[in-house]
Every structure is written in C-alpha cells, then in structure tokens.
C-alpha cells in the first residue's frame, strides 16, 4: 500500500462495557478501497461508528493523514474529511433533496483550500437526483435514498468515505448501480472507501478485492475474486459460527457478559 490516508491501530470499542470490536488494525490510501464483511452484529457498524466518532473507543488510535482524530467529536471528524453514509441511509426526512445535499456542504466548507463546490459534479454523477431536487427526501425509493445519502456525503468533499451496508434492502439491479457509483467515486474521484457489507460479493467490485472479515476481531482475507468458499473457510478459522444463524450475532457481541 502506498501512502496511508486513514490508519486504524489496535482499535477496541463496544457498548456498555462489552467489547464489540477487539484489536482491529488496518489502513487505506487515496483511491483505495476496503471491504468490511461480516454477519449482522459482528461489529461492522460499530467499527465504522467508532471511526466516525459516534462510539468512543476503549483503546487504540485512528489517524487521518497522520493526524490523530481518535478523540474528536463526530462533526469535527466529518469536517476533517471522513464522511459516513450510515446504515439505513438516514436521509433527513422533512427536508427536500436539495436541502439534504446542502447539509453535506457544511463539512467541506470547513476545510480551507478545498476545490470548487462539488454540487454540479455530484448531480452529474447522480442525474436522478437532479430531477428531484425539490422532492421531500423520505418520499423517494430506497435506491434513490441511498444515492442521496452517498451524494450528501460527497458534498462534504470527503477524502475517506465510510459506507455502511449500501445494499441493504435494495433490489439486485439497484445494488449493482450503487456499486458502480461507489467504484466511480473511488477510482475517478480518488476517495478512499471503507464499505461494510454482509455479502462479500457485493463489495468486491467496489473496493477492488481488498477485504477484511469482521467477527469482533478483523482478519485480512486475501481474496483475489469473489470466492465465497474462501470466506466461509475464513469464518471457521476465526472460530465463529457461519453467519446464517441468529446465534452468531449474539455470541460475537455479548460473549463476555454471559
């Protein structure tokens, strides 16, 4: 890996005394991608939320371009250039598409010397949104809302984009389109992408093969392609249940408190 943009060192975090993620380290550079793959409750969201400051880590460090951002508040982390597209999209209901996009500009405006307003570029990337600028965000389809959530984050001119389960609840066709957009953002905009997904298949095309398997701890998976068998093997190696049963989530998140 060339120069590192976002570096996570030995991160430990969780809720109410339980450890959901335990000793996680990785780094990504500009234009690089990282898939975070794991079952529900395995700690994907917690990892992303810890990076963006919503969850206070118990220990470990998070560096952005060498600068320690571990203890910054979420809004300052966003203004530093790490934007988070949260799970479930969470577009601002009651606000129009245009207003949703405007909230994104706040993060970018805070950084001096940034390039021009990305408004047009973002709308060029998502022409569907341009047609619906004055529509209430919550009235749009799931796929459109996902586009809006990504576009909103892009308005903040991120150097790192954290995307939590972009495929959740979307039809396969739409998933494919979202994935294409994300790849464009990584390859042509040079944004570092950290994408959390349950299915390795969804992530491959976006992040370019570099994946982490999360099950509380992270294991690096050298998957040259979308090899599901490899992934399952890795899961077993990590000592976890296969991620199709409900039990795995519980066992992974709360084991220490039983």
């Amino acid at each position, binding site marked *: 890996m060339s120069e590192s943009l976002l570096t996570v060192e030995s991160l430990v975090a969780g809720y109410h005394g339980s450890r959901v993620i335990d000793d996680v380290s990785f780094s990504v550079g500009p234009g690089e991608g990282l898939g975070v793959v794991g079952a529900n409750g395995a700690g994907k969201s917690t990892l992303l939320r810890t990076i963006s400051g919503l969850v206070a880590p118990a220990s470990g460090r998070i560096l952005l371009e060498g600068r320690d951002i571990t203890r910054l508040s979420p809004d300052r982390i966003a*203004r530093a250039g790490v934007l988070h597209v*949260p799970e479930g999209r969470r577009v601002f209901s009651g606000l129009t598409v245009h207003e949703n996009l405007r909230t994104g500009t706040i993060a970018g405006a805070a950084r001096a010397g940034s390039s021009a307003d990305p408004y047009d570029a973002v709308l060029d990337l998502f022409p569907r949104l341009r047609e619906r600028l004055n529509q209430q965000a919550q009235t749009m389809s799931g796929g459109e809302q996902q586009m809006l959530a990504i576009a909103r984050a892009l308005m903040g001119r991120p150097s790192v984009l954290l995307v939590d389960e972009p495929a959740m609840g979307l039809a396969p066709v739409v998933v494919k389109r979202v994935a294409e957009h994300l790849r464009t953002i990584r390859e042509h905009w040079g944004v570092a992408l950290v994408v959390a997904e349950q299915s390795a298949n969804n992530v491959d095309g976006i992040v370019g093969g570099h994946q982490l398997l999360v099950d509380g701890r992270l294991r690096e998976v050298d998957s040259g392609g979308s090899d599901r068998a490899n992934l399952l093997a890795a899961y077993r190696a990590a000592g976890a249940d296969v991620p199709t049963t409900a039990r795995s989530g519980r066992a992974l998140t709360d084991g220490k408190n039983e």
Partner: protein
Amino acid sequence: MQELLNGVAQGTVYALIAAGLVLIFGVVRVPHFAHGESVMVSGMMTCWAVTSLHLPVLLGAAVGVAASVGYGLFLCFAVYWPMRNHPEWNLLASSLGAVVITQTAAIAIWTSTPRVTPGGVSGSFEIGDAIIPWSWAVLAAISAAVIGATALLVSRTTAGVSMKAMAADAETAQLMGIPVRKNWAIAFAVGSALAGVAGSVYSTVFPVSTTLGLDVTFSALVVIILAGIGSVAHVLWGGVLLGVVEAVAGTVFPGGYQDSMVFLFMLVVLVARPNGLFGLERARD
C-alpha cells in the same frame, strides 16, 4: 367577532413563544420548561429599563431581548449542555429546577406585582362592531412578522438547514459535519430571542409578572402539540387556534371552565392525532 379577533391577537403571541420553543425542543431535544422564564425575564427587564432607566420603549425592548438571550444561553451551557447525554426526564427536572431558582430570584428583585411597560401604542380601531386596540394589532403584527422571518431564516440559510437536519436526525447531522455545540447555541439564542421579543412587546400591552413563566410554557407546549413539532410556520396556526379556542371557551363557558376547555381540546387533538393537527413528522421517543 370581538372574541375571535381577541383570540387571534393573543394567539400570535402564543405562537411566537412556541416558535422559540420549537427551535429549542425540535433541534436539540431539550424539554426547556424554563422557556417561559425567558419571556418573563425579557418583560421585566423591558419594564425596568423603561421605568427606571427612562429608556425609550424600543431600546427597552432591546434590553429585554438581550437579557432573554443571555438567560437562554446561560442555561444552555451551564445546565443543559453538560447533561446532553442524560435521559430526557433528567433534563426536564433540571429545567424545573431552573424555573424555581429563576422565579425566586425574580420575585426577590421585582416582587410579584404585575406590571405594564408604559409607552406602548394607544388608541383603537373598529372592525364591524368589534373594537381592537392598536396595541393589539401591533403585537399581532410584530409576532407574525418575527415568526415569518424565523421561518425564512430556517428554510433559506445554511444554519437553518443544518438545524432542520439536526431536528430530523441529530446523529446523522453530526456525521455530515454539522457542529452540534454551535447549533445548540444558535437554537437557544434564536429561541430565547423569540421569547424575548414576545415578552417585551407583550409587556407593553398586557401585565407581566414574575410568576407567569410556567403558565406561558404550558401555553407554548399546547401550541406545539396542536401544530406538531416539525415546523416553525405551522406554529402560527397552532397559536391562533389556541387563542381562538380560549376566547370561544371563555364565551361559551363563563363559569370558569375556560382552562379546562383548552386542555380538553388539546387532549382530544392529541388522542385523535397523536402527532399534532398539522404534524407531518412522527414524534420520536
């Protein structure tokens, strides 16, 4: 007719106070029961500035609004901000504690005699057989204008959009880089300023006393319930509705059930439409 117009005039003031509370409660989710104290502080300061410092009414009003904003910001950062991660009822309890202290101090300073700021507009005009004092018209006009201006501010400026975003989803707003602390300050400053305008203008027309705070807060809450928490502009209709219901209840039930009728009306609205008459938004738990 007379009652309706009276109700409208009174209602716009309720709306103005409620609009301030909507900003505070809507944006930062603080059940700010000391909001009425901001109205009281402004009214008393305006009256004091005009009668004791002999300032003109407009300057007196400025003093009142400034005091109200200062009071709101003080509570924001001395009480609520340190408690931002506490459960909602803890915040409610702390706001009630603030009410007790504020009221006690205010009575110690100003006693509890109601007072009117001299120098307001005098005279009246007639619509049909109704006689409307000019001061009421001015009160209603200022209230409506300030609400309108605030609504514009919220919808047209980046700060306004970011406050709407915080109201819709505070966590995601943070993820978009919206500065939480600063928005708390803005919400409290603007919200208390609205209360301040209401207090100072009101004091030139109606008597204000050091004990009116909680009553005012209740009225504002009723307006918010009628209007729904979502929108500053809807609050105007909620306020007017409350004013009219109050006036009509006072006419139909002269025997003293006026307050009950207002509360009953509100309960019916709440039970029938738990998110307010005009509410678009789901009330979050």
